[in-house]
């Protein structure tokens, strides 16, 4: 009975915290104390609720009634929540003035966050600061809720602490402090872990210029960013699979694993969804690749850079050539025929464009203005897909829609995972009883059972290594492993 009270208290705390934010949105409330109180109430609310939810029960899997509760089974509560989240994203991306963003002086919700923004980075808040703060609060709060839920599973605890740490320190605090210490510099991304192509504007001209003009910090970010893409991430993916990023470090993954945990079972496991996934995510990768090549090429021409633009194009063609050769000679066994064909065709067409371009000396490398390309990408993928659909539709489509269908970073790491990595999920002999818990709770929509019941290891490019399949398995069949264990 006390636990019920604890749950209700938690819920009330959280709702009052949200209510204060809502009041601020309508310009009804103001003051730094209220801001901190509301954020603390939201955090405390989640923690108190989670205590009521889990402390009275013995440690173990806590999935009772998941498919009976409205919020976690696409009921009316889920639809309302989805609508509110979606609306919030639409406003953040396209109508920030409704939140109170104003050049002459913020009002509303944005102004409400000004005190925290001044404290951290030395200037007023923007809609992105509001968003970043709430995002971090969500990961911390629901991360703390996740830990008692999985308190019998050390892997889940360690992993959740990791995403909470990277969100708080690397995504939220560090960039703000760095901005405060370097107030004169133009904006460039200071989140060390947010690499291209998840950060799709990394190679855009304004961003490159800001980094190049950003002194030591700017140069460090430039080189670290490039090093992450070509060196650090492939090495870590080789040893640990893409989980080192997707379910341990990444902010999108962090939100999905914490705030999105109640929705992981909603991912579509049908063969049809899998077919859509393969085409869609690799199309986005292709889109970001083309955009980036075009943007860099324009930058090199416009800035009369030391790197010859044609040399850059030759480099891109060589890179594609080596990749295709690798697939043809070594990687072919691990990819289906249509996937290989797709790679050859895409590489061939891109190369053909680049060669024609070099021959006729056009500044728009794909015959489309690179600025249009990148603004389309920013609108359709960066905002609409990753934000509005990716998070707004959590309660309907599951928590990893963006990661599964859209994220080009996940696509690249997926290639590395499938082709090179030591990581796999191993199946324990013939112990599988085909119950389906693993597939149901796979947030990436992988039909884990299809492999487990055949006694096969699971090597899928989309697997983010969250480890929940292994956790929910009632017969101890699945284990995340980095390479084979010799018996």
């Amino acid at each position, binding site marked *: 009975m006390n636990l019920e009270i604890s749950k209700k208290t938690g819920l009330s705390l959280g709702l009052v915290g949200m209510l204060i934010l809502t009041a601020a949105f309508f310009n009804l409330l103001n003051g730094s104390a209220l801001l901190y109180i509301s954020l603390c109430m939201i955090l405390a609310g989640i923690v108190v609720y989670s205590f009521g939810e889990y402390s009275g029960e013995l*440690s173990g899997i806590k999935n009772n009634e998941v*498919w009976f509760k409205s919020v976690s089974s696409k009921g009316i509560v889920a639809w309302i929540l989805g609508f509110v989240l979606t609306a919030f994203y639409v406003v953040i991306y396209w109508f920030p003035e409704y939140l109170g963003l104003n050049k002459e002086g913020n009002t509303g919700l944005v102004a409400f966050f000004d005190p925290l923004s001044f404290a951290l980075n030395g200037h007023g808040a923007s809609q992105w600061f509001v968003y970043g703060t709430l995002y971090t609060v969500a990961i911390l709060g629901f991360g703390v809720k996740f830990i008692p839920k999985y308190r019998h599973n050390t892997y889940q605890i360690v992993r959740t602490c990791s995403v909470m740490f990277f969100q708080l320190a690397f995504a939220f605090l560090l960039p703000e402090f760095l901005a405060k210490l370097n107030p004169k510099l133009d904006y460039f991304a200071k989140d060390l872990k947010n690499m291209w192509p998840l950060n799709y504007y990394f190679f855009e001209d304004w961003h490159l210029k800001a980094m190049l003009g950003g002194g030591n910090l700017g140069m460090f970010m430039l080189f670290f960013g490039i090093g992450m893409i070509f060196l650090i991430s492939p090495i870590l993916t080789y040893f640990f699979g893409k989980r080192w990023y997707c379910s341990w470090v990444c902010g999108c993954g962090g939100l999905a694993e914490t705030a999105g945990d109640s929705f992981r079972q909603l991912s579509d496991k049908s063969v049809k969804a899998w077919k859509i996934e393969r085409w869609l995510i690799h199309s986005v990768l292709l889109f970001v690749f083309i955009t980036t090549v075009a943007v860099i090429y324009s930058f090199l021409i416009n800035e009369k850079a030391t790197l010859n633009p044609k040399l850059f194009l030759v480099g891109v063609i060589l890179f594609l050539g080596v990749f295709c050769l690798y697939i043809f000679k070594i990687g072919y066994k691990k990819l289906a025929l249509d996937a290989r064909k797709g790679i050859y065709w895409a590489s061939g067409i891109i190369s053909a464009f680049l060669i024609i371009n070099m021959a006729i000396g056009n500044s728009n490398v794909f015959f489309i203005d690179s600025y249009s390309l990148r603004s389309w990408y920013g609108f359709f993928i960066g905002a609409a897909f990753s934000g509005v659909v990716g998070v707004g539709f959590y309660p309907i489509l599951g928590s990893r829609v963006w990661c599964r269908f859209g994220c080009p970073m996940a696509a690249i790491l997926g290639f590395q995972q499938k082709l090179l990595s030591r990581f796999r999920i191993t199946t324990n002999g013939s112990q599988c009883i085909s119950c*389906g818990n693993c597939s149901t709770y796979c947030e990436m929509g992988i039909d884990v059972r299809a492999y487990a019941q055949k006694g096969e290891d699971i090597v899928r490019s989309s697997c983010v290594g969250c480890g929940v399949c292994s956790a929910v398995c009632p017969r101890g069949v699945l284990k995340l492993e980095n390479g084979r264990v010799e018996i």
Partner: protein
Amino acid sequence: MSKKVVIIGNGVAGITTAIELRKLTDFEISVISEESEFFFSRTALMYVFMGHMKFEHTQPYEKSFWEKNKISLINGRVNEVLPDINSISLENGKKLSYDYLVIATGSKPNKYNWPGQGLEGVSGLYHKQDLEYLEKYSSKIKKAVVVGGGLIGVELAEMLNSRGIEVTFLVRENSFWSMVLSENEGRMLEKHILEHGINLKLNSELKEIKGKYSVESVITSSGETIECQFVGLTVGVSPNVGFLQNSNIKINKGILVNEYLQTNVPNIFAIGDCAEIQQPQLGRRPIEAVWYTGKIMGQTLAKTLAGEKTAYNPGNWFNSAKFFDIEYQTYGLAPAKLNEYQDEFYWEKENKAVRIVFNKENRVFEGINTFGIRMRQDFFEKVLNRNENVGFVIENLGKANFDPEFFKKYEKEIKSNFNLQNA
């Protein structure tokens, strides 16, 4: 030449036969089931009731799979088998002819003619229909009694408990699942079951179920009356073979089959829970109603039907279960009561336990029960096939560990305990 194969029953044994046979041949394959349209995992029914999954999640294959693989699924009940004319008749009057007939009709829950067992609110837990009945009836249940201390009993107790129903769990024996587990293992699980709020009563049998139309109470062997609105009968299962009574297929408890899973009628085979092996391998029972053996029988029979005559070889015994939050795996033979020539080593800590049985004289490893620590089947397959020494197993227990990363390891402690006992 394409042959007509009719399989009665779409459980794991029948469906495995169908799928494996499709890989090997272009035979015309039909699977008949009265219970469900598509194959589902029977062991997962409990998770549907608890809200972990929806029923469709228990189905490993989509509708398109059956169409693509040309396995025709027939919804219906078989009335009788007519071996003389190689045909079966369905309840709806239809007849189906076959070249090979596979009987995989599974089990039915045991009922021991208790007074009142026909009342409303008395049910076993085996079929999809049992789950549907329980679901429909559950709103009327405040208190329930589960009879029978085996795997299904503890699952049913967990299911009812998850809906906030007060459960009394009657176990006939002196310790939990004493057919299979040693007393100290049983005690650990009893403690866990009690911690979950189940009213576990050992040494208690059901005597009578009372009620006018529906269950109102039960009376136990000790004369105690327990008020309840539901009685779950989970006192084991028996082969579901009633429909064969008028055929000339030989039946004891189950359908009698030889090592090729063949009945006395040469083109009729029986597999899974309903089959009774006439000469089982050493240490194995004639009827083993478990998921894994059903699957292995299906794989074996598919080869035979495809023309590669293969004897049923279940290999080393293994099994698994979950008792509320405690996972259980077993490899090899670790009997509840040791044989004369055997010795055992037992270790237990915080709801985790390991019991290793070995030969007293030559110290060869014979089997292991593990609770709360996942272990690799591959490891024990090798150990058992090579007749490794118990010392080797203790020494290499770390390699057997299959727990997720960062889990606390107990191998050192187990090893030092073993060395202390066996110094």
